[in-house]
């Protein structure tokens, strides 16, 4: 079992040290890169998409060399990729696996869905409290309206 998993990992080249973000829904790969601000990352990043997955049919994977995310940083991706798993790699081997968790507060990355919210009119950094993790409901710190999964847009 371990061997098959390792072989699958190798479809996108292995990294020596860093973080593998696995089981990303294919449509969210780009958003994950944006949320983690990886466009501006200077070290090696390997990206795979439309890879076969037993669990998901098709999945995306992102491998970031020499980067170990803080949990509140990485947990933001749970908004677009709740299924994602994190694999921390040290010396080419798995040192830890974990799931992403929906954070209790979300800043900057999400737009408030309310067009009459001050954050959509003036240059204000958005802030939300996550009031329901299962259904993904965010309450805007400013207008107090609920932005839910189906109305969620990213900045």
């Amino acid at each position: 079992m371990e061997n098959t998993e390792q072989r699958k990992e190798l479809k996108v080249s292995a990294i020596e040290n860093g973080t593998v973000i696995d089981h990303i829904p294919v449509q969210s790969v780009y958003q994950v890169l944006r949320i983690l601000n990886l466009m501006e990352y200077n070290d090696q990043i390997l990206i795979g998409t439309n890879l076969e997955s037993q669990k998901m049919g098709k999945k995306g994977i992102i491998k970031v060399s020499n980067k170990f995310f803080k949990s509140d940083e990485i947990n933001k991706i749970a908004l677009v990729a709740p299924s994602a798993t994190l694999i921390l790699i040290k010396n080419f081997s798995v040192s830890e696996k974990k799931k992403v968790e929906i954070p209790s507060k979300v800043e900057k990355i999400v737009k408030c869905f309310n067009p009459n919210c001050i954050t959509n009119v003036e240059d204000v950094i958005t802030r939300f409290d996550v009031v329901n993790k299962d259904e993904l409901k965010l309450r805007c710190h400013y207008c107090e309206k609920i932005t839910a999964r189906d109305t969620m847009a990213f900045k």
Partner: protein
Amino acid sequence: MKNKSLVSINDFTREEHIHILDLAGAFERRPKQHILEDYVVATLFFEPSTRTRLSFESAATRLGARVIGFSEPGSSSVQKGESLRDTIRTVSNYADIIIMRHPREGSARFASEVSRVPVINAGDGANQHPTQTLLDLYSIRKTQGTLDNLNIAFVGDLKYGRTVHSLTMALCNYNTTFHLVSPAELKLPSSVKIHIKERNLAYHQYTDMSEVIPKVDILYMTRIQKERFQDPMEYEKVKNSYILRNNLLDNAKSNLRILHPLPRVNEITYDVDDNPKAYYFTQALNGVFVRQAILAAILGVVE
């Protein structure tokens, strides 16, 4: 409460609400106390609301404060395109406290974060109007002798009415049973119902007002606006069901009182005005005492 902004009704605890109501009672007994003589109060009305502005200005003036500000954005730098951030930063150099009304939701919270002085929200779009909520609480307590364990009905537009939303949230602290009467299109939004559910309180929804009247202690009426309906025919169908007429009150409890945030259009007929159960004009007067209490508490001139 000293130096704290009042943006949302939940910014103050239940105990702080009660404290404001107690202070308001003292101002009702003795309205003219010049305890804010050295203070400047700014009223910034980015959208006009004469009633609310006059109530605040009356409260400030009765306490001896000087009032500066504008009553509509046309007469201010706002029209020249100044950002809210800059207007607030500037005015907070001139005043000890800012009272603002603004058409955008969340504007008051944002203002409180960029202001050097406390901000009182006098209405931010469809979101919050906490001083209205406190005067509603004051009126309820005054007429019922308590805020606890009451049966309270809200009638009309429960979807867009921020007055109803804030008051519902505040009443969740008092074991209220809610009776929600509205057309199907204008039901209380789930974002507000969350608060009721969180407290495990009961709420009942109706489309007919008459079956609710005998059960309740407070009948809180609101206006239904035609523009809120996608289908104008739908409005025509329901509009008469949400008008309170005097004969509907025949089997009401003796302690029932009728509240309304005013201005009314036609949702309470004039024959109700002479009924001792009508309380909406006194409710508006209470607003001045409550706003005196809020100003005095936030500026720290009373304990």
